[in-house]
């Protein structure tokens, strides 16, 4: 079965010789030294270093904005470093494109998938493989054979026919991995793969990574969750503010060390202590209810399949679950943006909504702060007379939001596009908090934010619910830890249904089991 090593001309197959022999190689499969990369005035990487060895799982850890994805982008040939040295297989290389990285033996599995949804799985696997026929007829049979072979050897299970758009997230990720492995790369890098997986799927993935490493490959795993890293990695590199601050073997580090390295001082990142001493959940009539709500998605299937929920003032209801199980639709219904197809939604008047895609759905990039605040006020009688808007009053409100939320911008006339992600989210949060006198619906409110901004949002959510007559909050998040930290009540969204968790303070394992469709508790 041994075939020639993949070359740019030949059609690569699995089971090549060469880099996987592993034994006795002194050169590291991949090494990045002194990498500097800027984006305009922002310095994403400031002398970062990474060195991976064969037959290891190497985790790259860092908080959002530390530069992990940028580093991976450089390794994968998508970005070029402004300074620094990239070595693959012991020799220095200049990667000009993703294809360059491929042919040199780096397989990259992206965070946001690079599959073409409208094409079939087989077509996606075939894409970009330059065969000897150089542009002409594709031999799909050969791709299929190679894929089946690889699936057998790694235990990856993927359906080859049918369009990618019909497949779920977990399966799509497996296709991405398969696609990368088809080139038989000595270096395989994965960018935050666990964000979209259930705890069970994470286990399978880690098992796969360990077996790939056992074959002799260098497996790089970019992550920001410490316990994942501790469970699967052989070595760890920590990035902070674009620099490598720590690089050690698994045995040499523990959670506090890693946290300290990630954050930089002894400040406790873990604000779990805040969850103790929370006031008892208020009793009383729910401020918002959903009764047997059914919502159809664009293809006619039921995205929400009979959801019932009651939210009381002052409580934070956490809804966990992997993306695509109906959370989006439920959030839209709760926020009054979408009426249910069947069932009833009883909603109060003062609703605030923090959508998950703040750049596209929460803000208008070309509008300035004042106009973005006006998005919430344009049909409010207090901010205008008759058909006219009172821009003076709206401006005052925008100034209030700016100062109270600490938005870093030269003035309220700044365009939203010019703000950083964290400041954009502050703007959205500030605008919506003012509206949320009765109910706040927050969808992944801290996605993509760094630790400081995340802590800020969490603090605001808590502050909101502690106030006298504070609103009820529904927190929909794919970040299980966030839900567990903040929620008074935890629910799991699974295939369009809500499952309540029996215990008051559940563990990750308990919730994870539910996410897999395990035993459901009393709603």
């Amino acid at each position: 079965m041994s075939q020639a090593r993949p070359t740019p001309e030949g059609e690569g197959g699995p089971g090549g010789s060469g880099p996987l022999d592993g034994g006795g190689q002194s050169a590291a499969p991949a090494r990045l030294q002194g990498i500097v990369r800027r984006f305009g005035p922002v310095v994403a990487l400031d002398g970062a270093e990474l060195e991976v060895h064969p037959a290891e799982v190497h985790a790259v850890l860092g908080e959002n904005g530390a530069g992990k994805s940028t580093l991976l982008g450089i390794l994968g040939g998508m970005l070029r470093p402004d300074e620094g040295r990239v070595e693959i297989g012991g020799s220095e290389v200049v990667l000009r494109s993703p294809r360059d990285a491929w042919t040199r033996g780096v397989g990259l599995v992206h965070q946001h998938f690079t599959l073409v949804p409208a094409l079939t799985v087989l077509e996606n696997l075939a894409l970009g493989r330059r065969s000897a026929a150089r542009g002409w007829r594709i031999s799909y049979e050969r791709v299929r054979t190679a894929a089946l072979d690889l699936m057998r050897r790694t235990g990856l299970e993927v359906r080859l026919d049918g369009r990618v758009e019909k497949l779920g997230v977990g399966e799509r990720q497996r296709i991405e991995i398969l696609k990368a492995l088809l080139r038989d790369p000595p270096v395989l890098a994965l960018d935050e793969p666990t964000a979209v997986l259930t705890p069970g799927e994470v286990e399978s993935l880690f098992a796969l990574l360990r077996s790939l490493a056992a074959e002799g490959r260098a497996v790089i795993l970019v992550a920001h969750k410490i316990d994942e890293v501790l469970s699967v990695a052989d070595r760890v590199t920590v990035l902070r503010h674009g620099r490598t601050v720590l690089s050690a073997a698994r045995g040499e580090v523990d959670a506090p060390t890693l946290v300290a390295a990630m954050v930089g001082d002894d400040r406790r990142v873990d604000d779990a202590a805040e969850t103790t001493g929370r006031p008892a959940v208020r009793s009383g009539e729910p401020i918002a209810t959903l009764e047997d709500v059914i919502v159809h998605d664009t293809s006619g299937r039921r995205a929400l399949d009979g959801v019932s929920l009651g939210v009381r003032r002052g409580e934070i209801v956490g809804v966990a679950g992997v993306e695509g199980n109906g959370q989006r639709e439920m959030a839209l219904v709760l926020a009054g943006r979408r009426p249910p197809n069947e069932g009833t939604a009883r909603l109060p008047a003062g609703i605030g909504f923090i959508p998950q895609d703040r750049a596209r759905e929460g803000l208008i990039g070309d509008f300035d702060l004042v106009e973005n605040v006006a998005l919430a006020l344009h049909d409010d009688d207090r901010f205008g007379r008759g058909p006219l808007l009172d821009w003076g009053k709206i401006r005052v409100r925008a100034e209030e939001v700016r100062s109270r939320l600490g938005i870093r911008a030269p003035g309220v006339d700044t365009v939203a596009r010019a703000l950083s992600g964290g400041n954009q989210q502050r703007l959205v949060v500030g605008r919506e908090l003012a509206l949320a006198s009765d109910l706040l619906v927050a969808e992944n409110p801290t996605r993509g934010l760094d630790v400081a901004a995340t802590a800020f949002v969490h603090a605001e959510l808590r502050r909101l619910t502690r106030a006298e007559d504070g609103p009820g909050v529904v927190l929909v998040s794919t970040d299980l830890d966030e839900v567990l930290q903040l929620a008074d009540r935890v629910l799991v969204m699974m295939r369009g249904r809500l499952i309540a968790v029996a215990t008051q303070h559940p563990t990750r394992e308990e919730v994870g089991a539910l996410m897999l469709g395990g035993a459901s508790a009393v709603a």
Partner: protein
Amino acid sequence: MSEVELVLFLEASVRLGVPLALAAMGEAITERSGVINIGLEGSLIAGALGGALGALAFGSAGLGVVAGAGAGFVVALVFATFCVGLGTDQIITGTAITLGGLGLTGAVYQARFGATGTALSLPTLAPAPLPLVSDIPWVGSALFAQAPTAYLAYALAPLLWYFLFRTEWGLELRAAGEQPDAAQAAGVRVRWVRFWATAFGGALAGIAGAHLALAHAGTFAENMSAGRGFIAIAVVVLGRWNPVLVLLAALLFGAASAFQFLLQAMGIDLPYQLFLAFPYVLTLAALAGWVGRSRAPAALALPWPRER
């Protein structure tokens, strides 16, 4: 209705459908790569003038067609420079290209031949009946006794289909039109692909225009494209971006346009503006009726790379 009249109708259907088919197949390729070329009309009229001038200059209709292809190609290249190269909005850029094409061809024509509009006499692209097949009853002469550009259209349909769905280049082109980020990550040069797909579409539209001037009308007149470029874009939708279906849809449209001859032959006399408007009304109706079932390439008309 006699056999003669039916055959005439079929012949007219094909004759009218061929330029649509050529332009639409070209546009199908362009759109599959993610670019909508509203400037197709500009390529078409440029092809018509290019074809006329080329035929006059070289004394040959065949070379005129080549010149027309070249003219359409250049116009599309300008369009691609702006929207693929610079990233300007495809719709408005296309509209500007169409306007520019119509204005330029009008100006060049008037400058060369005066503003009076006397018809040019051009070497024409005569029908070239294919042996044997053109003798098939009913459809033989309609399909196989046409100008050579018709045969080009027939040949292109399966060729382009094969290109799109069976070759690596076609796969890369489709990926570029569906999900350019993914295509780029797979090593596809998205802008390069789009550039050439657009230019190719323009060349085909140029041939269609040359056909109009040299095979259909036998002369050039300002604005003679009469919106066929826009109808071609609609035909692409109706043909679901599939070259073979696009050819069939175009021929159907040709039949609809030829309908007026049928009615006249049957003695029905309607105001001729109604006939002129008919193709456009039909296109509207077809778009209304068929749209729900087909899906455009996902990245069509979206600027790429996306702005931050």
